C-alpha cells in the first residue's frame, strides 16, 4: 500500500498551469479524507493549496492514460472539478491534482440526510440545471461518467451551484472504467452487468434529479422497505430486473410508505404536474427497459426552464410557489395569486410578482428581479444582467435601463433584453 505522509513530494507529469512542463511537484500537507479507492490530500503547489487524489490500490493500467487524456482535453464545463495534473507513478501508485472544493459546497448525500437544505426552489432549480448542463457537455465531449452517485457532486445550498467531482471515472463512451457506482444510482441494464454509457448516465441523471426534487429514491417504496436484509442479490432485483417506480400508475406494489418516505409524499402533489408526468414517463417500464428512449439532457433543461418560468414569490406569504395552468394558489398559504401582470417573451409568459426573479437567457443566472415601489403602487423590474435594455413605452418613447437600474411595470412597454430577445409587459 502506498500512503503518503506530510512533507512527501510527489512529482507531476504535464502541467497544472501554463507554461510548465516536467519536473514540477506538489508537497503533501495533510490528509483530507479517504474512501474505498484512495486518499485525498491537501497539497501545496507553488504556494497554492490544491487537492491530490492518491489511489491506494492503483486501478488497472488503462486508467492512467485515460486520466492523462482527460487532463489534456480539459473540463467539459465549469461544473466539473476536473483533474489538472497527473502524478508520475511513484511509491507503488499514482494520483492526480485538482482544485480544492470550496467550503460552502455540500455533498449531495448531506442534502439527502437533511444536514444541508436548499435555501429556495430557485437554488434547487439552478442545481438541477447545472447538473443537466454538465452531463450534456460531458456527453458532447464523447465521455460517459460511469459512476454518478450522491458522493460525487457537491452543491452550494444558497445558490444551487454544483461541482461534479471524482472525474477520474469519466471514460470515452463504450469503455468501462472498472469502477462501479452504487446500485441505487445505476441503470437497470448496468446493474445486470452491462457497460455504462450515455444512456445509463441519463438514467442516473433522472434518479439524481428525482432525489433533488423529492428527497426520496424513485424506486424505494413499500416493496423495498419490506425487504428486511438488502443483500447484493436483492439490490440486483430492486434496482435492476424487478425495478418498480414508486408512483407507477400500473403497478401499486411499491408506493411510498407514510412515516418513512415523508418528503416525496409531501412534495409529489405539491410540485407541478409537468414534473410528475416527466418522472412517471422516465421511470415507466418502457424507459427502464429501453435506454435509447430516455430523455436527453436538452429536454431536461427545457423542462427545468419551464419550471423556473412558473416559479413566483407569493405576494401574501412571500414563500415560493409554482403557477400552473388552472392552478394559481400558493402551495404554502393556499391563497390565490394575481398573475395578470406578465412579461411575454415569445411563447413564454413570465409572471410578475414582488420578489420573483426572471431568467431571460439560458446561462443559469437571474437577469431580472421584480421589486415593488409601495409609494407609486407599482412593480419595478431591476436589471440584474450585464447588458443594457432598450425599452419602448406605449406612447413610443425610447428608454434605456442600464445594469442595476430599474424600470416600472406598465402594460404595453416593450423591452429588448438583447438583440435576439424581445419581450412585452402585458396585463392578461
Amino acid at each position: 500500500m502506498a500512503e503518503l505522509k506530510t512533507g512527501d513530494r510527489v512529482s507531476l507529469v504535464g502541467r497544472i498551469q501554463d507554461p510548465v512542463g516536467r519536473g514540477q511537484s506538489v508537497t503533501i500537507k495533510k490528509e483530507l479524507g479517504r474512501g474505498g479507492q484512495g486518499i485525498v490530500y491537501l497539497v501545496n503547489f507553488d504556494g497554492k493549496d490544491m487537492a491530490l487524489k492518491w489511489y491506494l490500490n492503483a486501478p488497472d493500467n488503462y486508467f492512467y492514460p485515460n486520466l492523462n487524456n482527460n487532463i489534456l482535453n480539459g473540463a467539459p464545463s465549469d461544473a466539473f472539478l476536473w483533474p489538472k495534473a497527473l502524478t508520475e507513478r511513484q511509491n507503488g501508485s499514482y494520483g492526480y491534482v485538482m482544485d480544492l472544493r470550496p467550503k460552502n459546497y455540500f455533498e449531495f448525500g448531506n442534502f439527502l440526510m437533511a444536514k444541508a437544505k436548499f435555501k429556495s426552489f430557485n437554488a434547487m432549480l439552478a442545481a438541477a440545471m447545472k447538473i443537466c448542463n454538465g452531463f450534456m457537455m460531458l456527453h458532447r465531449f464523447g465521455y460517459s461518467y460511469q459512476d454518478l452517485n450522491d458522493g460525487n457532486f457537491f452543491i452550494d445550498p444558497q445558490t444551487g451551484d454544483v461541482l461534479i467531482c471524482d472525474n477520474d471515472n469519466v471514460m470515452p463512451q463504450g469503455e468501462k472504467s472498472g469502477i462501479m457506482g452504487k446500485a441505487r444510482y445505476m441503470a437497470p441494464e448496468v446493474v445486470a452487468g452491462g457497460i455504462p454509457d450515455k444512456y445509463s448516465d441519463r438514467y442516473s441523471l433522472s434518479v439524481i434529479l428525482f432525489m433533488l426534487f423529492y428527497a426520496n429514491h424513485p424506486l424505494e417504496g413499500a416493496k423495498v422497505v419490506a425487504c428486511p436484509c438488502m443483500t447484493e442479490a436483492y439490490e440486483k432485483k430492486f434496482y435492476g430486473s424487478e425495478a418498480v417506480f414508486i408512483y407507477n400508475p400500473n403497478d401499486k406494489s411499491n408506493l411510498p410508505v407514510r412515516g418513512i418516505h415523508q418528503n416525496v409524499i409531501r412534495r409529489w402533489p405539491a410540485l407541478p404536474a409537468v414534473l410528475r408526468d416527466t418522472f412517471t414517463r422516465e421511470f415507466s417500464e418502457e424507459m427502464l427497459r429501453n435506454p435509447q428512449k430516455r430523455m436527453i439532457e436538452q429536454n431536461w433543461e427545457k423542462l427545468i426552464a419551464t419550471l423556473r418560468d412558473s416559479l413566483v414569490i407569493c405576494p401574501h406569504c412571500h414563500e415560493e410557489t409554482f403557477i400552473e395552468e388552472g392552478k394559481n394558489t400558493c402551495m404554502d398559504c393556499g391563497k390565490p395569486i394575481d398573475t395578470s401582470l406578465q412579461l411575454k417573451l415569445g411563447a413564454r409568459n413570465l409572471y410578475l410578482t414582488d420578489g420573483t426573479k426572471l431568467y431571460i437567457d439560458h446561462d443559469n443566472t437571474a437577469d431580472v428581479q421584480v421589486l415593488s415601489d409601495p409609494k407609486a403602487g407599482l412593480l419595478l423590474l431591476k436589471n440584474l444582467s450585464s447588458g443594457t435594455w432598450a425599452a419602448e413605452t406605449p406612447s413610443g418613447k425610447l428608454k434605456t435601463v442600464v445594469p442595476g437600474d430599474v424600470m416600472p411595470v406598465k402594460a404595453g412597454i416593450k423591452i429588448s433584453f438583447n438583440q435576439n430577445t424581445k419581450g412585452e409587459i402585458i396585463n392578461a
Partner: protein
Amino acid sequence: MSLLDETVEIPRRTMTLFFVIDTSGSMAGSKIGAVNDAVVNVLPMLEEISAENPDAEIKVAALEFSTTCSWLYSEPKPANEFVWQDVQANALTSMGAACKELASKLSRSGFMKSASGSFAPAIILLSDGAPTDDFESGLATLKQNNWFKAAIKVAIAIGDDADKDVLTKFTGTNEAVFTVHNIDALKQIIRVVAVTSSQIGSKSSTAGDTTKQEQVIAEVKSAVDNIGGAEVASAPATTASYDDWD
C-alpha cells in the same frame, strides 16, 4: 413554513457490526487490553462513516464468550452511543454457545428490526484459542441463519494457538482469517477490519461480480501488507470443498 424547511432525512437502512470476542483465560493481560483499546478507538471512526453515509446507519453490537457468553448491550447501538465497557478474561472458550447466541439474535425479532430495513451485517470474530465446547453443533445452527449466510464474516486469529480451522469454518473461507502476532498488529487489524467492513457493508452495493465479503477481504489484505506481524492464513481451507474427491 416552506416545503423545503420540512425536509426530513431519507430513510436509511441499518448495518450492524458485530464484534464476537473470545474472553477466555488465555486472553488475559495485554491481549484483552489491546482489544479493549482498539475497539474504543475505532468507534469514533465508525460514527464518522455512519454520519456521512446516506445509504445506511451503522450500529454496533458486541458478544463476549468465555465460560458463558453475554452481550455488552441488549440491542445494537449507534456507534456514538456505544460506550465500550472493558471486557475481562476468564476460564473457558464456549464458541459453540456463542454461535447459538448469535444465531438467536440474527432475526427480525432479535437485533435486526430496523423499520427501514437493514443491509447484511458484518461479523468480526476474535479468538486466540480453540473452542472448549460443542462448536460444530453451534456453528451448524448459525449456518442455517439467512442473516449469517449473507453477512460479511471476518476472523482475527490472535497468535499461533488460535484454531484457524475453526475460524475458517466460521467465515466460510480461509481468506477471511487474518492472523496477528503482536499487540500492535492486533490493534491495527481490528481498526482496519472494522472500518473496511463498515464502509463496504453499509453502502449500496457496486453490483459487480464480487460479494461484499470478497471486497472486504481484498481491501484488508492490501492493508495487512503494511502491518508488521499480521498475515493472511496460508493453510489450505479445510472446508468441505474436496468432498467430491473421496
